[in-house]
């Protein structure tokens, strides 16, 4: 899922300072799981803002609403109506959700409450780690289910750099070297032969942003994108 962190309160407060009525829109999917932008966090942010605004003597109303997913048109369309009475919107979604919402509410300023960090996993409550750089070319099948693009700090495709110290990464002594882990896992599975061949340069042309993916079943409908 997508992992995000809430921005410092002061930054959010300053973004919406010029506006009276502000609607805070939460997202009930990834950012709710990582405790950054779900319904609860929307409530918390609203309370914080209310307090700060009262102290500063600023008038205005703060609305709260959380949708299932802000990255899905179906879920955000009703927000057009909900946002009508507000001068500005704060979105607690990831960057994708914020942009989708901003495109929908074209006339209205939409501000992000989060910094989107990575695609990762939920290690334990409150502990998230990165796993995927969405690089358009998955190597996991040959690298033993450990991603060299993401888990190796340098994203090296052909083995470890010269900086590995006692199996730990050059960049962070607390973290295992991804290439040592890849090697160890493949060795234990008797699959080391898979990484013997030199992998070619990564096809970065595919990663040119913004990316588009069209499911084969929809090819005809969206032929223009082909």
């Amino acid at each position, binding site marked *: 899922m997508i992992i995000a962190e809430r921005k410092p309160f002061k930054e959010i407060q300053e973004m919406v300072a010029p506006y009276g009525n502000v609607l805070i829109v939460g997202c009930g999917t990834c950012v709710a799981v990582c405790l950054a932008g779900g319904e609860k966090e929307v409530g918390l942010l609203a309370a914080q803002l209310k307090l700060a605004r009262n102290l500063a003597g600023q008038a205005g109303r703060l609305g709260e609403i959380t949708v299932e997913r802000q990255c899905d048109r179906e879920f955000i369309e009703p927000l057009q109506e909900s946002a009508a009475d507000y001068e500005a919107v704060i979105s607690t979604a990831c960057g994708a959700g914020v942009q989708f919402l901003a495109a929908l509410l074209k006339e209205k300023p939409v501000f992000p409450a989060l910094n989107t960090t990575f695609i990762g996993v939920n290690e334990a409550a409150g502990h998230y780690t990165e796993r995927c750089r969405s690089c358009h070319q998955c190597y996991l099948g040959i690298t033993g289910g450990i991603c060299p693009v993401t888990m190796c700090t*340098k994203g090296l495709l052909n*083995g470890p750099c010269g900086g590995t110290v006692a199996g730990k990464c050059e960049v962070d002594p607390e973290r295992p070297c991804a290439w040592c882990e890849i090697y160890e896992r493949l060795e234990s599975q008797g699959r080391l032969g898979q990484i013997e061949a*030199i992998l070619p340069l990564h096809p970065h042309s595919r990663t040119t942003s913004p990316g588009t993916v069209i499911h084969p079943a929809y090819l005809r409908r969206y032929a223009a994108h082909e």
Partner: protein
Amino acid sequence: MSKLKDALAAGGFPLVVEVKPPKGVEVAGMLAPVTGLNGQVTAFGVPDNEHARMRLSALAAARLVQEAGGEPLMLLTCRDRNRLALESDLLGAAALGVENLLLLSGDYVHQGDHPDAKPVYDADSVQLLQLARELMAGRDSAGNPLKGAPTFFLGAVVIPEAQPLGPQRLKFRKKMEAGADFFVTAPIFDLDRYRAFRREVVPDGVKILACLKVSSAEEVEKAARGELRKVYTLPPAVIQELSGGDPEEVLAKGAALAGRLARQLRSEKLADGVYLKAKGRADLAAAFLQAAGF
């Protein structure tokens, strides 16, 4: 044309001395070893933003070394350039007469003085060797033909004391396959460990320049406290030998030790030459030469 190549081929035990491109444009200090030691030194290693600290460009520095009468061995890292820049710098090097190259991934940006810089690593060191080979064959990495193909003598790095050794061996094999003509090791202080690596891991005929380093007092103290986090180790006897005295004395002892190690590597045929890191200082390199008896 490469003296380094000829010396390695002839078994001449070449010495490469590293110079230090300045942070700034005052190049006299960088060139001191070139003007002072030329004749006793086969080539001069020119680091590329070493430890991710921004310095004068390795390509310009390599050319300056050449104009001062030395033969450069230019380092080129994947950290700061995408494939376009790597290839065009390689062509630039060739056009300026820089033939010897040491191709490496490069220390990560966090280690250096521009920690917020975008790390590139579009290619890794194996792929960079392949890029250079492609250029030599008259094509760029996209398959476009070149007007005039460059000539290079290609080096790569190997870490004798890597732990675990398996992944490093894999990388070493890939670098050989990708066309490395010679290897430069990580610094060697522990001859026993290096001997084991040389005998067990390095196939016959592979040319190795053993890196010898003159350690600073700070590094020796760190090693003594067990806090040196490096890809090489200083054995207790070496720490004891280098410890004590003011920073200059430690450096002098380091140069003498490096000289002794070089002599031994040569007599035991454990290396084909030496890559000396002596802070870019001509006096320390001279002290090394004296101790080595070269």
